[in-house]
């Protein structure tokens, strides 16, 4: 989801840890090393990587500025190839018929059918371009906060894994418990109380 859209969804994170070395240079290196790779002519079904906010289809962190005000602004791109099952069925059926005609047999074994399905799927993966999904990120380094513009579980999990790999920092997703734990001004005693509280019954 793009941050300039008229309607957005935001998942909030606390960033744990500090960048070792010069900040901007280190962040840029992390983005470059883990930037998205094109898989259109590859046998891969899915890939995820960083891309530039202003040029997500041709990422270039050298010329593209990722720093806006006090924030790093960049995007996570997840490319996925999805082949409709009806297309697989079509080519599978054609291949099975061809094999039966060549061998003169009436049936194929389970393994032969499995091999044909795999072969057909792999051949189609090479021919089908991946669908890109772009999710923007705003990282306020000074405040150790990060906004991810999606609430989708799978996209959030990709972000958490890639962020940790790229910058050696961990992301703490903010939800009721973590927000309470990290709330400003909470004492150790209150934190202990928090771990023991149970559900309130608003009606008897």
């Amino acid at each position, binding site marked *: 989801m793009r941050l300039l859209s008229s309607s*957005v*969804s*935001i*998942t909030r994170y606390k960033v744990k840890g500090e960048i070792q070395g010069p900040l901007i240079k280190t962040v840029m290196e992390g983005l470059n090393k883990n930037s998205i790779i094109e898989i259109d002519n590859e046998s891969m079904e899915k890939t995820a990587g960083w891309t530039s906010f202003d040029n997500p289809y041709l990422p270039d962190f050298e010329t593209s500025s990722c720093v806006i005000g006090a924030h790093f602004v960049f995007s996570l791109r997840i490319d996925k190839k999805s082949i409709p099952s009806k297309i697989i069925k079509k080519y599978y059926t054609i291949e099975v018929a061809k094999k039966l005609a060549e061998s003169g047999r009436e049936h194929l074994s389970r393994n032969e059918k499995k091999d044909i399905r795999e072969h057909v799927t792999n051949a189609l993966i090479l021919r089908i371009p991946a669908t890109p999904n772009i999710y923007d990120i705003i990282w306020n380094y000074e405040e150790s906060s990060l906004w991810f513009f999606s609430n989708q579980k799978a996209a959030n999990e990709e972000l958490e894994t890639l962020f940790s790999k790229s910058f050696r920092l961990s992301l703490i997703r903010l939800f*009721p418990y973590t927000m309470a734990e990290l709330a400003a001004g*909470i004492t150790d005693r209150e934190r202990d109380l928090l771990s023991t509280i149970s559900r309130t019954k608003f*009606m008897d």
Partner: protein
Amino acid sequence: MLDVSVAYNRYKFLGHEFLTWLWFIMDVDQSSILKTQSDMLSLEMDNRIVLENSLDNRVENITIKGDDAGLEEAKLSLQKGGVVTELNFSLKTGDHEWKFNIKGESLNVSSLRPPETGKIEKKEDVEGAVLEKIYLYEKVVSLVENLYTQFIQIRISNKWNSETVPLIKKWIKS
């Protein structure tokens, strides 16, 4: 700190209680909410509320939506022991309005519509547009964080059981 997925599931009731408390506060004590942000004119429930009621090991979800929807059904669900799991808000400051949705279990902000901003005509406009959007989103994010902090401070104090819960019970019955 607890394992993330354990903490998420074990304490999601806190998010549901937060939204239930927030509806109560918006209904009976707008002034305490207005103190949270100096330029805020109002924070009101907008056009959608989702409630969850666990009865005899089965979960009942009730969604009420529509601009003129009555809230009697929602109150009835609370009377049966339900809690608010999702709430749609309208926040107003000056001539501006933000609409957004909060899901209790995650406290994620979704369907956030800030006031309209100018169109981007040149590439040079992008930086300014991003900063403007960040400023507008920050209004909602900091409001939710401040209100939740306010809630948590009450929730872990003795005041919760001795004062707040009896008042909420009275409000639910009203």
